[in-house]
């Protein structure tokens, strides 16, 4: 029987932050707050740092254990956009095992074969093999009939469908959102309504089928309004957003910065403000890293030829803490956005410090200053749109199931 006692911390649990510690026995939470430390227990002095559940990252595109560890992420819900796509049970099982022991990967099953948007993949078998949901992948499913059948089928299996809401016809080959920056740079762009259009259709199908949906990222005022309204009517809808769309607008692309080429693309300032408001009022359910490493061969290109995507696993926590400093959310709510809600929505045994829960723990120095630097990240590549940004807060210790994870902080 092994025991670990983290003492002198500030514990984020049960909707509040309270001084105290966490006692771990055999990889599970035994007690929080104040407790008698058993003989022989390993003692950790938290020195006033936050003790909180490890982050659960929904919708990462790559298994990047060093980046996850550095970012305090203990579980990642993996997009099916792998090579090859996760459209059969063997691939799902392999992906589920790929990150252990450092980060536990919960794959999303490809909704359609080859993620092509036409025929349903073997969703039921993949769910038995460990998939925690299904996903349309990087693209949307254009055929409304397919989307309707997918939602009905996945819903009956108790699976949440992760959708990429972007009307393909309206978006076309666009690399940006319509606006002054796109026009100045001469880059093909699409109206921001491409997102709301897709959200509206999917919500109608959710209403028709009763099946739960999660929009991987919702980034525009109009689409967030639709989600807000759907929640008010009690539809089983949730949505996420990455820090990129909370802290950057499309002017970040100026100078053809391919690190700022994202999917969905960065939006105008009014939409960015709407995103912040939607985090504050609870329309947004979770914060995600959108972790998507793209090396120089994919990014050192003319903008329209560069791949979209950014690395975000190790910057998620620091950027999210900025929301607390800005007064948008408090720490307990932040951990709901970063850990509890993601676990709840995808049925993962994580995100809380309830007695008996797996001891996925992160120790956070919420004030530690550091600078995001593209060439010093632990991620598989350095494509962050936040290169050079000074931030505060980082994970200092991490445990997965009570076992320490090496952070390798530089």
């Amino acid at each position: 029987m092994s025991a670990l006692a983290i003492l002198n911390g500030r514990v984020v649990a049960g909707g509040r932050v309270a001084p105290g510690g966490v006692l771990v026995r055999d990889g599970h939470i035994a007690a929080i707050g104040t407790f008698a430390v058993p003989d022989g227990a390993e003692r950790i002095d938290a020195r006033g740092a936050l003790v909180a559940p490890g982050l659960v990252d929904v919708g990462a595109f790559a298994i990047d254990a060093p980046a996850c560890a550095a970012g305090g992420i203990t579980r990642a819900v993996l997009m099916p956009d792998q090579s090859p796509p996760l459209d059969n049970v063997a691939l799902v099982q392999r992906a589920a095992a790929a990150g252990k022991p450092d980060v536990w990967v919960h794959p999303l099953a490809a909704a359609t074969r080859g993620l092509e948007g036409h025929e349903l993949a073997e969703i039921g078998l993949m769910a038995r093999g460990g998939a925690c949901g299904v996903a349309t992948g990087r693209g949307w499913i254009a055929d409304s009939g397919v989307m309707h059948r997918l939602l009905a089928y996945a819903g009956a299996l108790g699976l949440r469908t992760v959708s990429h809401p972007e009307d393909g016809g309206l978006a076309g080959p666009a690399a940006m959102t319509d606006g002054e920056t796109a026009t100045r740079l001469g880059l093909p762009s699409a109206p921001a309504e491409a997102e709301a259009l897709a959200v509206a259709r999917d919500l109608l199908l959710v209403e028709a089928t009763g099946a739960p949906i999660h929009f991987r990222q919702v980034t525009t005022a109009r689409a967030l309004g639709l989600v807000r309204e759907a929640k008010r009517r009690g539809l089983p809808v949730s949505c996420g957003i990455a820090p990129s769309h909370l802290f950057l607008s499309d002017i970040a692309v100026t100078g053809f910065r391919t690190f700022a080429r994202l999917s969905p693309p960065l939006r105008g300032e009014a939409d960015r403000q709407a995103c912040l408001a939607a985090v504050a009022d609870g329309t947004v359910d979770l914060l995600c890293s959108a972790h998507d490493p793209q090396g120089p061969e994919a990014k050192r290109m003319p903008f329209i030829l560069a791949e979209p995507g950014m690395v975000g696993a190790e910057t998620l926590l620091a950027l999210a803490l900025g929301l607390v400093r800005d007064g948008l959310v408090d720490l307990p709510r932040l951990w709901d956005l970063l850990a509890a809600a993601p676990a709840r929505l995808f049925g993962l045994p994580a995100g809380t410090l309830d007695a008996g829960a797996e001891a996925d723990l992160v120790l956070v120095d919420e004030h530690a200053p550091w600078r995001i630097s593209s060439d010093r990240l632990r991620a598989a590549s350095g494509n962050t749109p936040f290169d050079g940004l000074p931030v505060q807060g980082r994970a200092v210790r991490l445990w997965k199931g009570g076992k320490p994870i090496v952070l390798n902080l530089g």
Partner: protein
Amino acid sequence: MPSAPALSDAHPFPHRHLLGIAGLLPHEILFLLDEAEQWVALNRETAKHDERLRGLTLINAFFENSTRTLLSFEIAGKRLGADVVNMGVAQSSVNKGETLIDTAMTLNAMHADAIVIRHDASGAVQLIADKVDCPVLNAGDGRHEHPTQALLDALTIRRRLGQIAGLTVAICGDVLHSRVARSNILCLGTLGATVRVVGPPTLLPPEVERLGVTRFTDMDEGIRGADVVMALRLQRERMAGGFVPSPREYHALYGLTPERLARTAPDALVMHPGPMNRGVEISSSIADDLQRSAITEQVEMGVAVRMACLDVLTRGARRVGNW
């Protein structure tokens, strides 16, 4: 890497490359136009030669097909005495990714003294410019910028109408896909002209008003009272229903016809960057009207402007005066 020589505040053109009109100040643009005047004069001589770029290697790297711009840069370089090499790159073989950077490194290793680049992707020229040690001139990148075209247009207007400030210029047609339009909006606006963009709503860029222009979707309204009417080329593949229903309808609604031209200021100047689709964006009778059309003059000014740009941008390397 050697740093650029310290330049005083009074330097007439403190830029290493010419990647676009964006970022140029009015006096810098006017400086290039003034410099071009001497080459207009030389080009009209029988012996059109100057030796100031002797020994320098100019590479024209065109990743997109071009006839007139390539020819214009080639003539400009040769008239200044440079060794000019043209590199035409088929779109299929080299237009993507690392290959573009590799090509830039290759050109750099050949010790070019100036590189002129055209590419079909916006921003591609800047990407190459960041990797090479010599001045880079943008000969058109995607739908972003085509600065020498804007300079030659400004020179043409100035020579015909005396000045640019105070004029009303209507840029008509496919503004959305046009780098010529973007550079001209910036250049003419910077020099004090009132700029309008006129075209079908499907071919006008989003929030184009933010560039300081007025937007018109009615051709007759858009050119009313204009001093200069600039027609843009409409690519054939965009006439077939994608952006406008047909060439015939486009001509009826947006073609520059003699009847329409009656609405402009008297003796308004007609311009076109070429190559023209006669009978689509412009009627032949207008294109060929030497009084009103400045189209061939634009081509002539192109060589002079490009000579000026090549001269000015290589002065640092040639250690001219305090450059």
